[in-house]
């Protein structure tokens, strides 16, 4: 401001601008003082106009420093919708990924809603339960929606059951499959390598009961979360069918048709944020690290045999039949009642009506 005044009147103008009254009264002493203090402090020689100029420059610099933040605060999103992927066979890595990111969503103030991007046919029941609990917790403080593409079945369905809303693609091929599967109960023979008769495995009755207990846990979890939405009774749910997307919306296993994009928009709207950012949290790797991979001719990557990460055939799994092969490989064969004849074609043929059967030889 003072720089724009004409140079001849610079001193007077500046003085009168700042403090007209004081300048008039103290003009004579002020005019005389510089020579008196010339031998004193250098600070005293700084002209007011210089000080004002420096202050203005500093103010501009400070303003430039702060301006982006202010601009961002004014024009930036009101909040973030986190998209968290649940993909592939559910194991510890999947559960950690989902649980960590959901915890982050709850503690991070900028995240206002969560969308689960689901394409999984299930896996280990306990890890599915772990995700179930994390989703349930998160859904109690913010909108949590799930969007299923092809597979949202068995363990994956358990994980998303507490979500506030489940979207499915109309052509989703497996939604639901509320049940567990494993090798058929079989007695164990005497084994000198174990220290107790049950060390090699429980008796068949106990195996049967425990399997049913796991199934009941699954069913109860689903009824707890979606009992009001699902229009089937408990027995029908326990049939463990996996539904198409169109069927799932009809019978209440899902809420509406949609995909991740629509779910994100709806979740943001539900959270009350018109202007939102999307933060996508992918699983870092489809296959946990450290497992040797083989690339097949058709381009698919499979886990090499012998890696220690395959689910053992002693485990009971929450896996939909559609995902059985990729989850457990050849170790456990799900033989349907009208299935193919086994290779040895003996009297075992089609009498294998249980949901599963071992591939033999492990019952000694």
């Amino acid at each position, binding site marked *: 401001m003072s720089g724009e005044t004409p140079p001849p009147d610079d001193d007077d103008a500046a003085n009168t601008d700042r403090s007209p009254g004081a300048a008039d009264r103290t003009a004579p002493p002020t005019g005389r003082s510089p020579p008196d203090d010339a031998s004193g402090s250098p600070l*005293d020689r700084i002209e007011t106009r210089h000080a004002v100029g420096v202050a203005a420059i500093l103010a501009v610099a400070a303003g430039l420093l702060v301006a982006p933040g202010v601009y961002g605060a004014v024009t930036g999103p009101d909040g973030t919708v986190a998209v968290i992927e649940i993909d592939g066979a559910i194991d510890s890595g999947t559960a950690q990924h989902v649980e960590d990111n959901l915890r982050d969503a709850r503690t991070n103030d900028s995240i206002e809603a969560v969308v689960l991007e689901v394409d999984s046919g299930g896996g280990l029941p306990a890890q599915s339960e772990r995700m179930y609990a994390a989703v349930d*917790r998160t859904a109690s403080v913010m909108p949590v929606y799930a969007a299923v593409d092809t597979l949202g079945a068995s363990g994956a369905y358990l994980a998303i059951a507490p979500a506030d809303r489940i979207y499915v693609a109309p052509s989703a091929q497996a939604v639901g499959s509320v049940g567990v599967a494993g090798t058929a109960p079989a007695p164990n023979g005497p084994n000198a390598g174990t220290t107790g008769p049950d060390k090699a495995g429980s008796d*068949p009755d106990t195996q049967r009961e425990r399997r049913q207990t796991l199934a009941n846990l699954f069913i109860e979890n689903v009824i707890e979360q979606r009992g009001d939405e699902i229009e089937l009774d408990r027995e029908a749910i326990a049939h463990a069918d996996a539904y198409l997307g169109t069927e799932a919306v009809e019978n209440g296993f899902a809420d509406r048709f949609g995909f991740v994009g629509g779910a994100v928009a709806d979740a943001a709207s539900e959270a009350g944020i018109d202007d939102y950012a999307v933060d996508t949290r992918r699983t870092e790797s489809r296959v946990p690290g450290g497992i040797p991979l083989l690339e097949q001719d058709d381009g698919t990557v499979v886990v090499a045999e012998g890696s220690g990460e395959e689910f053992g055939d002693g485990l009971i799994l929450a896996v939909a039949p559609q995902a059985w092969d990729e989850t457990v490989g050849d170790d456990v064969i799900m033989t349907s009642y009208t299935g193919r004849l086994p290779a040895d074609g003996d009297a075992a043929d089609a009498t*294998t009506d249980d949901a599963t059967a071992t591939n033999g030889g492990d019952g000694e």
Partner: protein
Amino acid sequence: MSVDLRTTVGAFALVFLAVVGVAAVGGVVLDDAPPETASVADDHWQLDAVEPETVSEGGEVEMESTEPSNTVVVHLGSGGAGLGGGTSILPIEDGDAPAEADIGSLGGVRRGVAPLTAALVENGHEVRFYGGLTSAEPLPSMLSDADAFVTTSPGALSATDADAVESFVDAGGRTLVTSDPGGAGALTDFGSPFGVYGEAGYVYDMENNDANYLSVLVEPTGPGALTEGVEQVVLRGAAPVGAAGDSTTLTTAETSRLSTTREAGAYGVAVRSDSLAVVGDSSFLEPENAGRADNGVLIGNVADFLVTGEEPDVSFGPTGPGGVPPGGAVPPGGATPPEPPEPSGNATA
């Protein structure tokens, strides 16, 4: 005017503390803790809430008959009994050496009928196993000396053997046939002369079962020698069987369903036609299942059924079915080649 260092430092300290103080106070005042999350409901995780209902352990296998020694021929096929009943393929008794650290095996296919054979032998009867075409003695020869016959795999009988059994039944020989799901075609092939047939599919029950939908609970339709003292039997994998006339002896609960139609209803799983008894399940004979519910009582009744009655008068001379000379060293098959062990069992299932 000189710079007052103390004042300057003091001013710095004052401003610094003010800034930090404002930040601290502001943080305390403005910062809101992470939102309270509702705890995950876990009432429905308690064992009481999810433990399946099971049947109680039942009675022992006991025979009541005081018949003199009878001979019972037992045929098991090659694949073992009760696959559908939940017992998987077991190591073959006479097979290879046991694997790994075992000190024994479960006993192979003959293990599947051990409770029945043990009861028979305990009561003074003779049990002879027929192992199929590779046996040293052909089935007609064995049957000519036998009082009763048991097969858990009618489909594994050759055509000649099946004819021999048919003649045996016609002559009054007590015969028990168990047929698991998947064996409907073979059972019908074998049983049609006596008005007995098998239905495709299996019966399951999602409500009343022994910890698994396949482990259906069956009850007698009325009083009868086979079901005396039986209130409830567990079958691990039941195939529906039927007979001309109403001779069903065991049916499933009304809540059970047939796999092929999903229709709920009571399905017959055991029939009796004179000297022929047919059960659509072989698992109830297995050691693990003999103690469940009243399975043991049923096994005892079956044992009584097998040894009761007149000795069948049947001979398999040159005029017998298939023209098999008794005691022939060569298994039948020259003129009438035996059919495969599994005639159409799967295709019709």
